[in-house]
């Protein structure tokens, strides 16, 4: 590099990968800034892992361009790109006959890590495995193996870290441990490209997410995607059905529309829930309604995902 860090840690422009007639992913474009945690979501077979492998120089793209850790994704740059990034595949892929330390030592040598011993101690401590360093990897649980794989991915202090389903098959406690580690890495400014099925995981960890189903369906912050896809609503619950809801809600200026969702439950479409909620409350009190609750409706990332994933490519 010439001393100036490019603005994007990772970018793709109309990147595609085909296997013969089969399209793994098509026309994928995005830009990820340094220090960003970027979630890559999609169903099985959507092309997530193939995208990671392509950006990680393991597969050659069929068309399109990309830059990874400041370098153009070309065969000539492959070795240097691999030096600057790390990939943690879905399966840890550890040498089960070797100890944790021996596994890490091998990869530290392959990354030509200076002061390898110190670095290994550091990554082992980061994944809380210092006391298991001499254990054979074959004797470790799945969760611990995943942590060893994460330690291995951190050995070269990567500029961009690809995590492919890092919590796949882990129990909630082990998954929580991996989440905490990702949080720590984010705080240290590591750019993370996280592919996952787990939408709660993406919502919790990622600054932005992209939804892929062969083509990129959407990209943005989770809250932004929710706002784009779903109307903002307030849900009003009363003890008994309102006498004249049409008149009541029609008198509140911020309410665009309303419908009765269930007996005594009313969903109001509003411009700004925070501004409209007090007005609705006042109107309800004036109408002597027995109000049980007024709450802004919450749409999860899962709702966004389910809304988008079945839409045919090219449609909004």
């Amino acid at each position, binding site marked *: 590099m010439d001393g100036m860090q490019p603005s994007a840690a990772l970018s793709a422009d109309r990147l595609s990968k085909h296997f013969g007639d089969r399209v793994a992913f098509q026309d994928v474009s995005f830009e990820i800034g340094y220090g960003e945690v970027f979630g890559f979501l999609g169903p099985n077979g959507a092309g997530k892992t193939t995208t990671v492998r392509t950006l990680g120089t*393991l597969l050659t793209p069929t068309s399109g361009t990309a830059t990874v850790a400041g370098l153009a994704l070309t065969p000539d740059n492959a*070795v240097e790109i691999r030096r600057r990034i790390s990939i943690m595949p879905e399966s840890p*892929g550890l*040498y089960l*006959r070797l100890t944790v330390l021996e596994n890490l030592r091998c990869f530290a*040598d392959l990354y030509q890590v200076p002061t390898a011993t110190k670095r290994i101690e550091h990554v082992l401590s980061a994944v809380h495995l210092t006391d298991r360093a001499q254990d054979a990897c074959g004797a470790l649980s799945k969760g611990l193996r995943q942590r060893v794989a994460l330690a291995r991915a951190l050995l070269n202090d990567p500029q961009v870290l690809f995590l492919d389903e890092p919590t796949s098959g882990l129990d909630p406690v082990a998954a929580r441990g991996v989440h905490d580690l990702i949080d720590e890495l984010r705080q240290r400014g590591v750019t993370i490209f996280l592919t996952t099925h787990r939408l709660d995981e993406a919502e919790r960890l990622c600054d932005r997410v992209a939804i892929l189903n062969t083509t990129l369906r959407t990209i943005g912050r989770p809250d932004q995607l929710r706002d784009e896809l779903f109307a903002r609503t307030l849900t009003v619950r009363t003890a008994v059905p309102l006498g004249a809801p049409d008149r009541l809600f029609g008198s509140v200026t911020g309410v665009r529309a309303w419908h009765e969702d269930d007996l005594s439950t009313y969903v109001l479409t509003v411009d700004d829930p925070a501004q409209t909620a007090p007005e609705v409350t006042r109107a309800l009190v004036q109408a002597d309604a027995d109000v049980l609750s007024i709450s802004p409706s919450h749409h999860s990332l899962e709702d966004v995902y389910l809304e988008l994933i079945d839409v045919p490519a090219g449609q909004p």
Partner: protein
Amino acid sequence: MTVNPRLVRAVVDKELREFRRNRSMVVGMAIIPLIFSVQPLVTVFALSSSASGPLRHEHVLLYMLGIPALVPSLVASYSVVGEREQGTLEPLLTTPIRREELLLGKALATFIPAAIVAYAVFALFLACVGLFAQPSVASALIRPSDVIAQLVFTPLLAGWSIWVAIVISTRANDIRVAQQLSTLASLPSVALAILIALNVIDVSLLTGVVAAAVLLALNRIGWRVASALFDRERLILGTKA
């Protein structure tokens, strides 16, 4: 292309550690030398002094070239397909190592124990013949030219077997198939060694030098061919895009 010795060494160290802890690999490396040394020793010990005459026209020692031809093929055939089956190939390929360095490391890691075993068994064979065979039989068997041929051809044959086995390993989808094909592929070398040992094929100094030069060239070509056939995409996906 320049080879980074540190990366090659990292692969060698890792492979040797794995071999040591893989019992089936250790047993496999021990059985073939036993077959190639015990039976000939028993035959040699049973020979009387009168047998030394015909022995002077044969190159019985070269029979032991079967060891460097067979032993490494078993191990080398595991090298790529084995990593693939245990799921360790992809993490390895995400590191900055080039395929030429990776394969050289794997070849060296097989070559070192195979050459040590072949030389050790040969030395043991010579010692046993020298100590326990009839003196005239021993002097007919142990001829400097055959000893030199054994010393020279052991690494060359081992190297050739290794590259053939690695080529097979990069293309095979199953460890057993790779091992069977590699053993099969090393049989011509073994057969040639036996035919020379039994004097069916007559060899001279010139043919020996030419054969050594050819094997040296084949070793170099083997590395190139194995590297060219090492297709990351196919190895990761199981198919070529």
